[in-house]
Protein backbone atom coordinates (compact mmCIF):
# COMPACT_ATOMS: atom_id res chain seq x y z
CA UNK A 1 0.00 0.00 0.00
CA UNK A 2 2.92 2.39 0.68
CA UNK A 3 6.00 2.46 -1.51
CA UNK A 4 9.44 4.06 -1.30
CA UNK A 5 11.80 4.38 -4.24
CA UNK A 6 15.36 5.68 -4.43
CA UNK A 7 16.49 5.97 -8.02
CA UNK A 8 18.93 7.67 -10.36
CA UNK A 9 16.37 7.82 -13.20
CA UNK A 10 13.82 10.63 -13.50
CA UNK A 11 10.39 9.71 -12.14
CA UNK A 12 6.99 10.03 -13.79
CA UNK A 13 4.81 12.21 -11.53
CA UNK A 14 1.60 11.44 -13.40
CA UNK A 15 2.17 7.68 -13.39
CA UNK A 16 2.88 7.67 -9.64
CA UNK A 17 -0.27 9.66 -8.88
CA UNK A 18 -2.36 7.43 -11.14
CA UNK A 19 -0.96 4.30 -9.53
CA UNK A 20 -1.63 5.70 -6.04
CA UNK A 21 -5.26 6.43 -6.88
CA UNK A 22 -5.41 3.10 -8.65
CA UNK A 23 -9.05 2.08 -8.80
CA UNK A 24 -9.89 2.99 -5.23
CA UNK A 25 -13.15 4.97 -5.28
CA UNK A 26 -12.89 5.56 -1.50
CA UNK A 27 -10.07 8.09 -2.07
CA UNK A 28 -11.39 11.64 -1.94
CA UNK A 29 -8.14 13.59 -1.74
CA UNK A 30 -4.59 13.27 -3.05
CA UNK A 31 -1.96 15.79 -1.93
CA UNK A 32 1.35 15.79 -3.74
CA UNK A 33 4.61 17.56 -2.99
CA UNK A 34 7.29 17.80 -5.65
CA UNK A 35 10.68 19.27 -4.74
CA UNK A 36 12.60 20.63 -7.71
CA UNK A 37 16.18 21.61 -8.29
CA UNK A 38 16.60 25.38 -8.40
CA UNK A 39 19.30 27.16 -10.39
CA UNK A 40 20.07 29.49 -7.48
CA UNK A 41 20.99 28.78 -3.86
CA UNK A 42 22.33 31.15 -1.23
CA UNK A 43 22.69 33.78 -3.94
CA UNK A 44 24.89 31.65 -6.21
CA UNK A 45 24.07 30.13 -9.56
CA UNK A 46 24.03 26.33 -9.40
CA UNK A 47 24.72 24.43 -12.62
CA UNK A 48 24.48 20.82 -11.43
CA UNK A 49 23.88 18.96 -8.20
CA UNK A 50 24.96 15.54 -7.02
CA UNK A 51 22.85 13.70 -4.49
CA UNK A 52 24.61 11.12 -2.34
CA UNK A 53 22.77 8.76 -0.01
CA UNK A 54 23.39 5.90 2.43
CA UNK A 55 21.91 2.86 0.70
CA UNK A 56 19.98 0.71 3.11
CA UNK A 57 19.64 3.28 5.85
CA UNK A 58 17.77 5.64 3.49
CA UNK A 59 15.08 3.06 2.84
CA UNK A 60 14.86 2.20 6.55
CA UNK A 61 14.54 5.87 7.54
CA UNK A 62 11.88 6.55 4.92
CA UNK A 63 10.00 3.41 5.90
CA UNK A 64 9.93 4.59 9.52
CA UNK A 65 8.68 8.05 8.48
CA UNK A 66 5.93 6.59 6.31
CA UNK A 67 4.83 4.18 9.05
CA UNK A 68 4.68 7.03 11.53
CA UNK A 69 2.47 9.03 9.13
CA UNK A 70 0.21 6.01 8.74
CA UNK A 71 -0.12 5.76 12.51
CA UNK A 72 -0.94 9.44 12.94
CA UNK A 73 -3.50 9.86 10.15
CA UNK A 74 -6.16 7.80 8.42
CA UNK A 75 -4.53 7.34 5.02
CA UNK A 76 -5.09 5.26 1.90
CA UNK A 77 -1.60 5.17 0.45
CA UNK A 78 1.72 7.01 0.48
CA UNK A 79 4.31 7.23 -2.29
CA UNK A 80 7.84 8.54 -1.74
CA UNK A 81 10.30 8.78 -4.61
CA UNK A 82 13.73 10.37 -4.24
CA UNK A 83 16.37 10.75 -6.91
CA UNK A 84 20.10 10.37 -6.31
CA UNK A 85 23.10 11.05 -8.55
CA UNK A 86 23.49 13.95 -10.96
CA UNK A 87 20.67 16.48 -11.26
CA UNK A 88 20.13 19.62 -13.31
CA UNK A 89 18.03 22.74 -12.59
CA UNK A 90 14.29 22.05 -13.18
CA UNK A 91 14.75 18.35 -12.34
CA UNK A 92 12.32 16.94 -9.78
CA UNK A 93 14.36 15.70 -6.79
CA UNK A 94 11.69 14.22 -4.57
CA UNK A 95 7.99 13.48 -4.67
CA UNK A 96 5.64 12.66 -1.78
CA UNK A 97 2.03 11.77 -2.60
CA UNK A 98 -0.60 10.92 0.01
CA UNK A 99 -4.15 9.65 -0.55
CA UNK A 100 -6.95 9.84 1.99
CA UNK A 101 -10.72 10.01 2.25
CA UNK A 102 -10.60 13.68 3.28
CA UNK A 103 -8.16 16.45 2.48
CA UNK A 104 -7.08 17.50 5.98
CA UNK A 105 -5.27 14.22 6.68
CA UNK A 106 -3.70 14.16 3.22
CA UNK A 107 -2.29 17.70 3.58
CA UNK A 108 -0.91 17.11 7.06
CA UNK A 109 0.61 13.71 6.31
CA UNK A 110 2.25 14.92 3.10
CA UNK A 111 3.89 17.86 4.85
CA UNK A 112 4.90 15.65 7.80
CA UNK A 113 6.63 13.14 5.50
CA UNK A 114 8.64 15.77 3.61
CA UNK A 115 9.55 17.66 6.83
CA UNK A 116 10.84 14.43 8.41
CA UNK A 117 12.56 13.30 5.24
CA UNK A 118 14.50 16.59 5.16
CA UNK A 119 15.97 16.03 8.62
CA UNK A 120 16.06 12.24 9.03
CA UNK A 121 16.76 10.57 5.69
CA UNK A 122 20.48 10.27 4.88
CA UNK A 123 20.78 12.26 1.65
CA UNK A 124 23.43 14.90 0.98
CA UNK A 125 23.51 17.51 -1.76
CA UNK A 126 26.63 18.80 -3.42
CA UNK A 127 26.27 21.81 -5.69
CA UNK A 128 28.45 22.96 -8.57
CA UNK A 129 28.63 26.76 -8.70
CA UNK A 130 30.90 29.12 -10.69
CA UNK A 131 33.25 29.03 -7.65
CA UNK A 132 33.49 25.25 -7.67
CA UNK A 133 31.81 22.43 -5.81
CA UNK A 134 30.36 22.72 -2.31
CA UNK A 135 28.30 20.61 0.06
CA UNK A 136 24.93 22.10 0.96
CA UNK A 137 24.59 22.93 4.65
CA UNK A 138 21.62 21.73 6.66
CA UNK A 139 18.98 24.46 6.95
CA UNK A 140 17.86 25.54 10.36
CA UNK A 141 14.35 25.96 8.93
CA UNK A 142 14.17 22.25 8.20
CA UNK A 143 14.72 21.16 11.76
CA UNK A 144 12.25 23.82 12.95
CA UNK A 145 9.71 22.42 10.45
CA UNK A 146 10.25 18.93 11.79
CA UNK A 147 9.94 19.99 15.41
CA UNK A 148 6.46 21.38 14.79
CA UNK A 149 5.21 17.79 14.58
CA UNK A 150 6.49 16.93 18.03
CA UNK A 151 4.38 19.50 19.77
CA UNK A 152 0.72 18.70 20.42
CA UNK A 153 -1.02 19.32 17.12
Amino acid at each position, binding site marked *: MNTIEIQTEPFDIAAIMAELRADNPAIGAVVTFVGLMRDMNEGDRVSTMTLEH*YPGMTEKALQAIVEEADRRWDLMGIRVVHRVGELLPLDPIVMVAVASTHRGAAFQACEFVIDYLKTRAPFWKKERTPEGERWVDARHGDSAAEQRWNKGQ
Partner: protein
Amino acid sequence: MIEVLFFARLREQLGTAKERLQAGSEATDVGAVIKLLQRRGGVWEEAFGDGQTVIMAVNQEVASASTPVKDGDEVAFFPPVTGG
Protein backbone atom coordinates in the same frame (compact mmCIF):
# COMPACT_ATOMS: atom_id res chain seq x y z
CA MET B 1 35.31 -6.77 12.99
CA ILE B 2 32.99 -3.79 12.59
CA GLU B 3 32.33 -2.06 9.31
CA VAL B 4 32.77 1.72 9.48
CA LEU B 5 31.22 3.96 6.79
CA PHE B 6 31.73 7.66 6.04
CA PHE B 7 29.50 9.81 3.84
CA ALA B 8 29.43 13.11 1.98
CA ARG B 9 31.72 15.90 3.27
CA LEU B 10 33.16 13.55 5.89
CA ARG B 11 33.97 10.88 3.30
CA GLU B 12 35.83 13.46 1.23
CA GLN B 13 37.64 14.96 4.20
CA LEU B 14 38.86 11.54 5.39
CA GLY B 15 39.58 10.30 1.88
CA THR B 16 37.79 7.03 2.56
CA ALA B 17 34.23 5.69 2.34
CA LYS B 18 34.57 2.47 4.24
CA GLU B 19 36.92 0.49 6.44
CA ARG B 20 36.95 -2.55 8.68
CA LEU B 21 37.95 -2.03 12.27
CA GLN B 22 38.98 -4.65 14.78
CA ALA B 23 36.31 -4.43 17.48
CA GLY B 24 38.68 -5.08 20.33
CA SER B 25 37.96 -4.75 24.00
CA GLU B 26 38.26 -1.00 23.55
CA ALA B 27 35.47 -0.43 20.97
CA THR B 28 32.40 -1.20 23.07
CA ASP B 29 30.32 1.78 22.05
CA VAL B 30 30.25 4.45 19.33
CA GLY B 31 32.06 6.93 21.53
CA ALA B 32 34.97 4.48 21.89
CA VAL B 33 35.10 4.00 18.11
CA ILE B 34 35.30 7.78 17.70
CA LYS B 35 38.17 7.95 20.21
CA LEU B 36 39.99 5.23 18.25
CA LEU B 37 39.61 7.25 15.03
CA GLN B 38 40.60 10.57 16.65
CA ARG B 39 43.83 9.02 17.91
CA ARG B 40 45.01 8.79 14.31
CA GLY B 41 45.50 12.57 14.39
CA GLY B 42 45.46 14.85 11.33
CA VAL B 43 42.16 14.99 9.42
CA TRP B 44 40.76 12.33 11.74
CA GLU B 45 41.26 14.41 14.83
CA GLU B 46 39.85 17.40 12.98
CA ALA B 47 36.79 15.67 11.56
CA PHE B 48 35.73 14.26 14.92
CA GLY B 49 36.92 17.24 16.94
CA ASP B 50 34.98 19.70 19.07
CA GLY B 51 32.52 21.85 17.14
CA GLN B 52 32.06 19.26 14.40
CA THR B 53 28.51 17.98 14.02
CA VAL B 54 28.86 14.32 13.14
CA ILE B 55 25.76 12.12 12.98
CA MET B 56 26.27 8.50 14.06
CA ALA B 57 24.35 5.40 13.05
CA VAL B 58 24.65 1.78 14.13
CA ASN B 59 23.16 -0.83 11.81
CA GLN B 60 21.46 1.95 9.87
CA GLU B 61 19.64 3.47 12.83
CA VAL B 62 20.61 6.86 14.24
CA ALA B 63 22.77 6.33 17.34
CA SER B 64 24.62 8.27 20.01
CA ALA B 65 28.07 8.01 21.56
CA SER B 66 26.72 5.61 24.17
CA THR B 67 25.13 3.19 21.69
CA PRO B 68 26.83 -0.24 22.13
CA VAL B 69 28.86 -1.67 19.26
CA LYS B 70 29.69 -5.34 18.81
CA ASP B 71 31.41 -7.55 16.30
CA GLY B 72 29.59 -7.60 12.95
CA ASP B 73 27.94 -4.20 13.40
CA GLU B 74 27.82 -1.49 10.74
CA VAL B 75 28.76 1.92 12.17
CA ALA B 76 28.33 5.05 10.03
CA PHE B 77 29.38 8.68 10.44
CA PHE B 78 28.04 11.56 8.38
CA PRO B 79 27.21 15.29 8.38
CA PRO B 80 23.67 16.59 8.98
CA VAL B 81 21.44 15.45 6.11
CA THR B 82 20.34 17.79 3.31
CA GLY B 83 18.06 15.77 1.05
CA GLY B 84 14.61 16.43 -0.34
